[in-house]
């Protein structure tokens, strides 16, 4: 592989959007650690740069939550019966939280254009491998920021949901704390799944098909659209052990009390195991991807 760092892109990469200096870009300090944590602000700052996105996200998330709430209430009707072990209030709470977690993520997907898929298409993926920060760390910090931003939307929605009575607060403090821990593990799994899908572009160049197929699996098997409890027994048993379930189904079920805190340990252990397995897989893929790097148009 031959890499050219001259030409287009050179000299502009690394400057902030507000940079107006006409002089040469100061060289990074030879000593001291690079301030990589600032990469976490990449996604929130991109969103802020296109403010209509924030208004559109609020509209989309708000109306989606409202529609699902109306649908579940209509389906349960006036009765207070339980369906698949969930009563009407639990189903509505589950739906609100799952929609907040799922929809927010779908909207954010690829919004910053900092994905291998888009970078390979325009050739700028080369900068991932020429910076003082490794590509793996760069993506991890960016993903961390994306996760924090999505969490801010979730917490806002949760606060509004609890205040308006749409979401029942977690039955006990322990349930809330366990759900929070499970959510953090779920975010790690979520990032790793997205990363693995994105890294396939190093082999396939265009990976829209893979991305969309993964999005399908994510929506269906994570419980973001339908609580997994409502699936037929065999499908629920299979889906609940896949990594997708770790992202939405487990934390939301813990929060709504559908999984009692006393039974939480195996679920958390499974989430943790997925974090490890996927992290190992992505590490392996990073190594192979770097060896296979093909720069188009760079």
């Amino acid at each position, binding site marked *: 592989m031959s890499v050219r760092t001259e030409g287009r892109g050179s000299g502009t990469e690394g400057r902030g959007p507000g940079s107006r200096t006409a002089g040469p870009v100061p060289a990074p300090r030879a000593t001291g650690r690079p301030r990589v944590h600032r990469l976490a602000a990449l996604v929130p700052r991109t969103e802020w740069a*296109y*403010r*209509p*996105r*924030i*208004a*559109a*996200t609020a*509209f*989309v998330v708000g*109306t*989606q939550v409202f*529609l699902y709430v*109306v*649908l579940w209430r*209509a*389906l*349960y009707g006036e009765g207070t019966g339980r*369906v*698949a072990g969930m009563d009407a209030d639990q189903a509505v709470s589950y739906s609100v939280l799952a929609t907040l977690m799922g929809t927010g993520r*779908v*909207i954010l997907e690829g919004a910053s*254009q900092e994905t291998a898929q888009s970078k390979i298409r*325009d050739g700028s993926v080369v900068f991932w491998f020429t910076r003082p920060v490794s590509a793996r760390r760069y993506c991890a910090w960016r993903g961390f920021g994306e996760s924090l931003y999505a969490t801010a939307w979730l917490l806002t929605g949760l606060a509004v949901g609890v205040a308006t009575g749409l979401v029942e607060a977690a039955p006990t403090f322990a349930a809330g704390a366990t759900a929070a821990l499970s959510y953090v593990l779920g975010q790690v799994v979520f990032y790793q799944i997205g990363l693995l899908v994105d890294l396939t572009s190093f082999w*396939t*160049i*265009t*990976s*829209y*098909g*893979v991305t*969309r*197929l993964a999005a*399908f699996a994510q*929506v*269906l098997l994570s419980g973001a*659209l*339908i609580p997994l409890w*409502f*699936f*037929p027994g065999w499908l629920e048993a299979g889906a609940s052990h896949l990594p997708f379930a770790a992202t939405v189904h487990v934390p939301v079920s813990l929060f709504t009390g559908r999984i009692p805190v006393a039974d939480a340990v195996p679920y958390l252990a499974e989430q943790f195991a997925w974090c490890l397995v996927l992290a190992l897989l992505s590490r392996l893929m990073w190594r192979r991807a770097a060896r296979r790097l093909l720069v188009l148009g760079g």
Partner: protein
Amino acid sequence: MTSSPMPSPSAGLTGGAAPVGRLRLATVILRAGLRSQLANRADFAMAVANGVTYQITVLLFATVIFTRFPSLDGWGVGAILLISSIRMLGHGLYMLFFGNLGLVPHLLREGRFDAFRVRPVPVFLQVCTYEAPINALGDLTVAAASLAVCLSMLSVDWTVAAVTFLLLAILAAMVIELGLNLHIAALVLRFRGSESLFFWLDNTAANFGNYPLTIFPSVLQGAFTFAVPIAFAGYYPAAWLTGHADTVPFTPVLVFLAPAIAALSLLTGTWSWRRGLAYYARNC
């Protein structure tokens, strides 16, 4: 083509070359697009599969709801499947011919949209032929299968009038989706970053357009009838075909209005798209 005068940047759906020439041009561009997508056969196959899987998600959602909550306001499984079949066929046709409208934000970001504006072919045509719509093949496959299943479950007397009504309803569903997406594309031209509205419309129609409208509270019945008329892209025509016309909200006349709503949606959508293009030409 090269010697024809350059159209104004606001040339909308009808500007540019003669209709026959435009059709030929669209075919040539689409063929080239198809070839370029076939370059990566695995991705091509997955794109087709994606259309199938997405519609399966929608059907599974409806099936799960139906299995768990059997009573949906007096509508049987076959009748409800007819609502979703009309909507899905309309959606598949929309994706096949106009689905690239959803790529407008991507085209804007990559600067390709600006190139479209200086070519002597309507911008709309260039957008619609930018990429071969592979997903639509999957969408249409599932929609056709769903229609076949529901027809076998329904005991409708398929007279010439009923078949014509069904075909008109499918076309209306396609045009309604086109009209609504033109509104969103116009908004995207005006407000960068509002592209999640494409996702919103798709998701809302797919997950809430498949049920009898009467299961929703009146505020949503009004919204899906008068504001975002997705109920005309499935529910109202299906109500007439399955003998539920007297149960529809507001007035039974609505069951016949899908073509009129489609025409209105297209007219306002086209107007909105032209305004969006003009705004873009002035300000960007």
